[in-house]
């Protein structure tokens, strides 16, 4: 089989994406829509083109391309991506064969393993399976960062190849989850059970979106969930607004506007810690 896979980008030397130093592959496509998402360019499988205004502030290309710079439509930007002498046009990803992706990843060797992130890597589980199989044949440690909201069949495709799961815990109230994230929390619960049944290493990661994730009802649900599903550790982190520029470039609205207080972060850390769970506040 030689499927195509849609890759956002590949980032070397990642410190927060699993054991040791990781190379992280951001795959495009995500089943849910978190208002605070830091990688909006990877939500959809579609590849979009943006023009960096810091590199090109021209309305008419001075280098004779049929391009109106940052005022151009997607078709024009796509056409000129490779031609732009200022390297101002960027694509939010590329479609490549799984074979090509494997080749690229095997050429990188100064890491402790590869992590698949996104989007959500389960969104392209069938193509990803091909990649993981070949990487595992090369004894590469595999980690996956996922919300586990995808169809449970997707998880089944890849679960055996994964060494470590980094699983987001977000909104566990069924109704609110559907309203805010457009996600089915029952998929999350089913998938988590499968991961624990297979006795995989699990790190839970909780993005502290004030009011949405951090509220009395959800915090209690999370604590109850953690009692029943003890991971290697829990990582909690404050959300930041560093993605603002990305949303602007993509013409998307950014709904995140409030950073959680340090006191709330510490309280939450203490609550988890009291359950006898290793918990760490991380920052990116």
């Amino acid at each position, binding site marked *: 089989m030689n499927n195509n896979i849609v890759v956002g980008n590949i980032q*070397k*030397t990642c*410190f*927060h994406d699993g054991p*040791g*130093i990781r190379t992280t592959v951001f795959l495009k496509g995500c089943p849910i829509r978190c208002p605070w998402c830091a990688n909006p360019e990877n939500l959809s499988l579609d590849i979009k083109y943006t023009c960096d205004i810091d*590199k090109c502030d021209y309305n008419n290309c*001075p*280098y004779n391309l049929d391009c109106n710079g940052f005022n151009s439509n997607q078709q024009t930007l796509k056409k000129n991506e490779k031609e732009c*002498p*200022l*390297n*101002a046009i960027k694509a939010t990803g590329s479609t490549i064969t799984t074979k090509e992706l494997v080749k690229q990843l095997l050429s990188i060797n*100064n*890491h*402790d393993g590869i992590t698949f992130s996104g989007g959500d890597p389960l969104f392209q589980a069938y193509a990803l399976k091909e990649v993981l199989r070949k990487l595992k044949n090369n004894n590469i440690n595999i980690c996956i960062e996922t919300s586990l909201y995808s169809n449970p069949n997707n998880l089944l495709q890849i679960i055996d190849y994964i060494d470590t799961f980094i699983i987001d815990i977000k909104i566990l109230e069924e109704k609110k989850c559907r309203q805010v994230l457009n996600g089915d929390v029952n998929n999350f619960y089913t998938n988590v059970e499968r991961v624990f049944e297979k006795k995989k290493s699990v790190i839970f990661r909780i993005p502290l979106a004030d009011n949405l994730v951090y509220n009395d009802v959800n915090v209690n649900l999370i604590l109850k969930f953690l009692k029943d599903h003890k991971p290697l550790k829990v990582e909690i982190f404050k959300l930041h607004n560093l993605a603002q520029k990305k949303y602007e470039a993509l013409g998307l609205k950014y709904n995140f506007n409030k950073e959680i207080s340090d006191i709330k972060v510490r309280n939450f850390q203490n609550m988890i810690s009291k359950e006898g769970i290793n918990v760490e506040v*991380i*920052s*990116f």
Partner: protein
Amino acid sequence: MTLKKLIPVKVKYKIKYLLKRARQLNYGKSEKILYVLKNYFKVKVISGDDASEKIMSQAKIKIVKNDNFVVSLDNNILNLNPKIISNITIDYGQVLKYSINDIKDRYKNSNDSYSVREYKFILAVELYVNKIIKNLKNNDKLLIDNLKKILNSSDLNFHQALQKILIFNTIAWQIGMKLNGFGRLDKILDSYYEENEFNNKLLFEFLSIINSNYNFKSGELLGDTGQIIILGGLDENEKYFSNKLTYKFIETLKKLNKPDPKILLRVSSKMDIKLLTVAVECIKTGIGSPLLSNDDVIIPILKNFGCGIDSYNYITSACWEPLIAGMSMDQNNICGLNYLEPLDKILNTNNVSLDNLEELYIEELKKYIKDKVNLVNSYIFPYNPLLSMFTSDCDRKHKDVSEGGAKYSNFGFTTAGLANLTNSYFNLKKYCQEKKIYTFDELNEKRKNNYSDSSVLKLLKSNEKKFGLDDEEVINFVNKVISITGEELAKYRNKFGGKFKFGLSSPDYINFSRNLAASFDGRKNKEPLNVHISSNYSFDETISFACKLNYDGLAFNGNVIDFIITPDYIENNKEKFVQYIYKSIEDGFFQMQMNVVSSKVLIDAKKNPEQYPNLIVRVWGFSAYFNDLPEDYKNVLIERALKNEQ
């Protein structure tokens, strides 16, 4: 004949020296003149073959002491010949092995001119130490006893050993040697040190007193003293050597929190990661130290160069240029090469075109190297009896280090501008050859006009193929230039029969640019050249790139990756950051140094210097107070920090 030429050399030398001192004090023009006039007759300049001996005899005792150590340095007596072999470290292992009496015995019965000179010099040293003793007061009994012991015995304790090192180090400064390092003090002092509170206090005081006479020891820039301590390293059995002192030196330097002295830690994939963690903790404070030097890469290259088993005992010149402790007089900073200079020369001729540019450049680079070789081979070095008595094989050959007495007598060039040359090449290739946006003549014209049209600069700077990118084509280009330089230098020998080597890190990135025209990389007239191995890419990209450069052969005279990182970044990723550095050792970087500081702090410090009296930064191979730096050096750091945070 101009009036300037009529002024005697000694007078000029004195004035130059006093002007440097006045500059260090930040005096204005009229204050400088007054300072020179006021101090002119206080300064004495000594010349001749026996200058070192005369200086030791005539130097006034000017005591600097703390509770447990004493040194003396007369900053009003100078050696006229600035070419005295410097930028090297006396072998303090040898210094501790023999008492002054032992050394006298070594030479007293020989009549050859070398031995006579050495004997006279050691007598002058003995006299000098006795003068210090006389100048101490009765309540300095411990200091006096230690100095007496140094004169007569080689059976010293830790305290006396440190005191002896300080005395001989100060003698080196006194006779006019510059950039005086300390060598592998953890190894040298291994048998003397026991961990206890008093010894740890001694270590703190030892490092504190090294920091004295900071202005006198500094070169043109305050902080450029070359007082480097080398720690750790592989031993002959390929096992990593470190001891309690290795850790203690790093911890004490961190506690001292001064830019000087500085530390170079020899690292290896065989070292304990705990030591690397301690080093990163020290680096995180922002003092710019330790610099990391990778034994796994350097030792095999030194072996191939011809240093055999001695390679395991390498130290470095003031910044990072490897040489063998106690066996070498290698002048590793004898001259700088600027890769843009030959390019600039051919661009000013009429027959240059895109087709013949590469060929003309290589030809001109070779001529340029030949000229530099001829220049440094014309240098005459004065006798250095101090260095000679502690350097093998001077005694065996009865030859001073300045006559080729040492086992190794090589010369090293430092280079700057390779990044600018690389980026120029890729800009010409992309914009003139591939995309044909400009003809070569058009772009050259714009360069000559210093890129008065800013859109050209925007274009030239937007090329994503640059020095520092882990890309096969970029790496191949850089390795090709390295290889041409190495092959050319291999054709020559220096006046002692020694070899020439070179490295990609140079202190000259600002000096070389002062009269240099704009270049195709988008550098305007007089703008600084790129710093060492650095780039605008992320630090891990630059490290991956640097790990793939070919340092074999002669390209090992210091190759430092230099990057700026914020303290928060290390704090938030401490454990992983250490793991990453460890992994990079395995990947094969040559050397690495970091400035741990944010652009916000640097910008604010430039505006409000009074609020940052203790802000330390790494400059080229040394650390300095940010406030002491000239504006152009401050600007380079700020610009690089801003780009790094983008």
